[in-house]
């Protein structure tokens, strides 16, 4: 079963005044273990689609499924709880809690899930080790570089053991070295732990390493290309 599936979702802003069609009949499916990029020019609907996939926003029409749950039928409260247990988020501006240390940021999500104190601390330490920040776990966000903060954000996204991770322009604010380092970590998690990643990005460095690239133009899927392990491209 697909991890994410959308059926002809549309999103219209200002339907009663000057309607803006941000998404037009978008139907895509993301399988477990995919490393997918949503690309396209500004205003093409990447972020809107990412918000739909993450159950942050509701489509004007169409359906959206995560696993076998139709998230478009959930209430706001149910969607928040669903996100907590099923989706990891990585944001362009890291968006860590500034008053918490790296370890507390990672364990915070598990605390919301109700994970036992001992277990959540152990897992937070493991995750920070896995993103190469085992020695910076007591640092607060302002004491970390942008690349380090984004790695903490990845560890935080993984903390809840989500079905997939949505990353909105994760490398946009990083220099090349930090971006490559982050991509290495995410690629490794994708290959070794079969973590599913969906990015929205402009960044060619990300696009080049994605195994599936979905291109949006004017709110519609323009192309959907998958690179197989033997480097052949399927449309």
């Amino acid at each position, binding site marked *: 079963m697909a991890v994410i599936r959308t059926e002809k979702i549309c999103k219209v802003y200002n339907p009663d005044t000057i309607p803006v069609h941000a998404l037009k009949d978008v139907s895509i499916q993301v399988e477990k273990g995919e490393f997918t990029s949503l690309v396209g020019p500004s205003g093409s609907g990447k972020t809107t689609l990412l918000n739909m996939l993450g159950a942050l926003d509701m489509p004007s029409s169409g359906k959206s499924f995560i696993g076998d749950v139709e998230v478009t039928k959930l209430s706001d409260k149910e969607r928040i709880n669903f996100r*907590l247990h099923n989706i990891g*988020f990585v944001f362009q501006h890291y968006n860590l*809690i*500034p*008053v918490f240390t790296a370890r*507390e940021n990672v364990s915070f999500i598990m605390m*919301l*899930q109700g994970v036992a104190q001992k277990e959540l601390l152990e897992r937070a330490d493991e995750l920070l080790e896995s993103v190469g920040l085992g020695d910076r776990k007591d640092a607060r966000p302002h004491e970390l570089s942008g690349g380090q903060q984004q790695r903490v954000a990845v560890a935080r996204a993984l903390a809840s053991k989500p079905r997939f991770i949505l990353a909105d322009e994760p490398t946009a604010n990083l220099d090349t070295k930090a971006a490559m380092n982050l991509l290495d970590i995410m690629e490794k998690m994708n290959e070794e732990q079969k973590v599913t990643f969906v990015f929205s990005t402009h960044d060619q460095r990300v696009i080049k390493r994605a195994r599936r690239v979905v291109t949006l133009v004017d709110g519609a899927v323009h192309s959907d290309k998958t690179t197989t392990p033997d480097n052949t491209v399927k449309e």
Partner: protein
Amino acid sequence: MKTLFKLAWRSLWRNKRRTLITISALIFAVVASVFMQSINRGSHEMIVDNMTRFQTGYLQIQDYRFENEPSLDNSFYYDGDLERELLEQDDRITFVLPRIETFMLAADEQTTRGGFVFGVDLEKEHQFNGLKDRLVNGRFFDDRERGVVLSQGFSDRLGLSVSDTIALIGQGRFGMSASGLYEIVGIMDHPLPDMNSRTIYMPLETARELLSAEDKVTSLLIGMDSDRHTDAVAANIGHFLEGSELRVFTWPELIPELLELLEFDLVGAYLMSYILYIVIAFGFFGTILTMTLERIKEFGILISVGMARLKLAFTLFLEVFIIGLLGVIAGVVFAWLLLYYFYLYPIELTGELAETVIDMGWAPVLPMSFAPDQFYTQAVIVFFIAILIAVYPMYRVIRLDVISASRS
């Protein structure tokens, strides 16, 4: 819960200066409101205290007719038996203070003035109100001595001083003529300005003799271990007096006009307090509004990653709760220290203001009340205002549009 508290606590100190200023504003609110209350209540307490100690007592027994017709004809028999029976009614009664009082004309060779004559048991009176300490000249009389002590204002009005003789003329019990010459043995400063201009103290037995009222008193004041027990002791005495011609009155029943006047006087103070509360509420709301608006994106992110709106709202409530609690506790401490200083060293009024206050019948000082309830009442009001303002950030979070907040 621990993590939410940690989040709230650390978020508070994200901007230390602002948090400290906010707490300071709350401290100021508590101190200012307690201070204003204390000044007003202090004056009132002093007036009531003097009224009760030198006039009515906290509890007073009278003949039931005396209230409407305060005449010696409505005095009543008092002896050791009644005193003992009263003391047995309630453990909290510490003594029974007999008084006989009436209006008489007082004259020297050229001037005649009206005044109140109080026949008192000096030792008991001193025990109750420290009468002897108010002596400014001469001495107090001995039992049965034909000597009187005049209040200072009255002696000034008559132009008399210690060792002079005063003539008292009036009506005794059942229309008997009452008159006599008495030596002024002392001058005292009466704490009630109105009474200071017309009071004459003399020994109880001497007064009885003058007024043809042997073994009689017009009132019995009941001394208690604490005035907080007034109502309870009054109830017990009331039961004891059932079926007799005597009635027990509490001090609010004896001076209702004064209480109304004091309550009216408090209106201005309440108005000032309300204005202060409004100013503080708007100031506090401004800070909370800023704290909320500058973190809208953060709230959006927290909800995005799965933090329930109610949990987030609770965290914000905790922040306001902590600020409120710190401000109020510190405010009470500062207010207590400030009031304690002024309680020990009351502010004395001088010049025209002092004269005006004296003309109004009050003492020219700003006594501070130290009543505990004014601390917690003001603290609770300021804390309630703070908590009420917490509704705003909670409402914002509950209604927050996650998408637009995350983009802000």
